[in-house]
């Protein structure tokens, strides 16, 4: 009798359990995603849809950062918009005024974000839960005051142009030319932004599945108990703040560089809430969920804006017909999404996905 081999998906060692793309299905999924990433902008060439996808990608980067802090480490931050704004202004300074290439202004923004996050971090040591939420809320308002008054950097209320160019050495992603083929600015930005999403997702996934990630989860579940089993809770809290705000600043730098103009009105409480809605809708404590949520929620404002004339009751312009403005509708939808998901599906879209996956894994049995 031939020896029966275990099922190929059976996990036998810890190293096997940690592997990111351990099964053929997962490897096929990775390949499919890469192909979509490379080919999509050549199929979808419409500027509107590309810009929606680019904004979703930028949002996904910011959401990955926030999910690391809130989903993994359990620190509530309403101040994410502050770090995103800081990143955008840093890109304007380093990429625009000093005219340095893409890797440098991106890294400079990340560094500024990390430093600012490190300054906020110590508050997380003394405060927890509710207190931290309100201190980071204060950060939004103090930040807004700074952005409106540091006119040499931010241009005050009128905003400033961000002339950071997406150039790496001789390659200009804003006007890409490959094998005699010209690609538009939007196509170049799509590849840039989504490649960065992939890199940062891999990076944070690696943080999350290794020792620091387990430490973060321990701190989230009970920081004092974590201290007792030997986790330096303080160090990990500050670290989570630094990494999270560094990623947020990179998102801000990309946002500014793509949009080419930013003003203090871009970094209000609503932006922070949008990010929180994203990680709740996507799924707290999952990297995959942040990206899913960013595509779902991040694309929403642009879609509502584009199709507002087709939605009944929405006023397309100030003083127009309809009882609710586009802005107010966005706000209401974010609010509703947060409430509905927390009440009915606290694990978010990722939770739904895991359930579907578990169902097919166990099929035809229901457990």
């Amino acid at each position, binding site marked *: 009798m031939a020896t029966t081999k275990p099922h190929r998906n059976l996990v036998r060692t810890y190293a096997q359990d940690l592997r990111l793309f351990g099964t053929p299905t997962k490897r096929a999924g990775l390949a499919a995603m890469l192909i979509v990433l490379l080919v999509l902008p050549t199929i979808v060439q419409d500027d509107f849809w590309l810009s929606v996808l680019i904004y979703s990608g930028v949002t996904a980067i910011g959401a990955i950062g926030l999910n690391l802090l*809130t989903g993994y480490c*359990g620190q*509530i931050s309403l101040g994410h918009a502050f770090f995103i704004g800081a990143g955008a202004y840093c890109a304007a300074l380093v990429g625009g005024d000093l005219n340095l290439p893409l890797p440098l202004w991106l890294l400079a923004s990340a560094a500024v974000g990390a430093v600012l996050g490190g300054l906020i971090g110590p*508050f997380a040591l*003394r*405060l927890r*839960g*509710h*207190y931290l*939420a*309100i*201190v980071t*809320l*204060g*950060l939004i*308002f*103090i930040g807004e*005051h700074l952005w*409106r*008054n540091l006119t040499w950097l931010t241009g005050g209320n009128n905003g400033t142009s961000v002339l950071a160019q997406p150039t790496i050495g001789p390659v200009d992603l804003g006007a890409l030319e490959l094998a005699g083929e010209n690609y538009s600015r939007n196509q170049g930005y799509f590849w840039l932004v989504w490649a960065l999403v992939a890199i940062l997702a891999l990076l944070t996934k690696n943080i999350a599945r290794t020792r620091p990630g387990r430490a973060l989860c321990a701190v989230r579940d*009970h920081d*004092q*108990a974590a201290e*007792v089993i030997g986790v330096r809770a303080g160090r990990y809290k500050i670290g989570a703040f630094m990494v999270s705000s560094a990623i947020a600043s990179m998102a801000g730098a990309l946002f500014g560089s793509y949009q080419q103009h930013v003003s203090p009105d871009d970094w209000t*409480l609503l932006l922070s*809430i949008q990010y*929180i*809605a994203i990680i*709740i809708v996507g799924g707290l404590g999952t990297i995959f969920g942040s990206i899913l949520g960013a595509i779902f929620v991040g694309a929403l404002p642009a879609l509502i804006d584009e199709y507002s004339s087709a939605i009944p009751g929405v006023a397309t312009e100030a003083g127009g017909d309809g*009882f*609710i*403005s586009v802005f*107010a*509708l966005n*706000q*209401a939808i*974010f*609010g*509703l*999404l*947060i*409430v509905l998901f*927390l*009440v009915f599906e*606290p694990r978010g879209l990722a939770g739904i996905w895991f359930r579907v996956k578990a169902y097919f894994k166990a099929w035809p049995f229901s457990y």
Partner: protein
Amino acid sequence: MSTFLTNVFAGLALGSTYALVAMGFVVIYKSTGVINFAQGGLLALGAYLGYFFANNLALAFGVAILLACAAAAVVGASVERMILRRMVGQPPFAVIMITIGLLFVLEPLITAIWGFDNLPIDNPWNIRTVEVGGLVLGVRDLWTIGITAAVVVGFFLFFRYTSFGLAMRATAFDPEAALAQGISARRVYAVSWAIAAALATLAGITLAAGPAGLSPSISFIALAAFPAMILGGMDSAAGAVLGGLIIGLAEALTRGYQDELFSWAGSNVSVIVPYVLMILILLIRPYGLLGTKDVRRI
């Protein structure tokens, strides 16, 4: 000297408004352990209900205030009943986010009904002033301070001498022990939301009766009342009043001396004074001035 006193008076009036909102926070926090970010939405809703009763139904101002408080209290209690009760036992993050979500639903709802325009609320205070010993005091500011003082006294009497006040204190202290004594936690939770909504309405109407009038941005005052609550300590009603007055005074004085002393910090620096003050005090006393340090078990 008289500018200083005028500023102090303005600060006391503003601080009273903060104190009203912050007491609403504390009532909800003490009994249910939830920080209610939706308080600003309830405040705006209450103020607009006051506008509805005073202007559309042309009721007497006092009656309009009472009706608005009652209506807002019903809204507050039903929000608790329909949404927050499902969240009992969830981590604080989820509950905070629920209330933020509620705030973001309430605000567009209000603008959808009443619009963005600045509405003048019919009231007997308006911009009338009285002169006391060379100082010109706004009638509305006097009323705000008076109402807050009355509410503080009423609060004290309610919690000290009524059986329901005792029930609320017991639930805040230990929900399970209170349940074992036959106290209905559901009623306590619903009533605390109702009280908070009524307090927010009082704050909203007294604000809206001022020169600024009534506009949707009125709900932002509740965000500025957070520092007041944090400063005083989240679980202390006396702390909320103290914090409110300190924050109000600091803000009014910064605004009053903006040109002489604070021009280096940029225009409108008074708006962020509550937050800066809160952060500074939290660095020294992480549990606020009168809050209790919580003891945590592993």
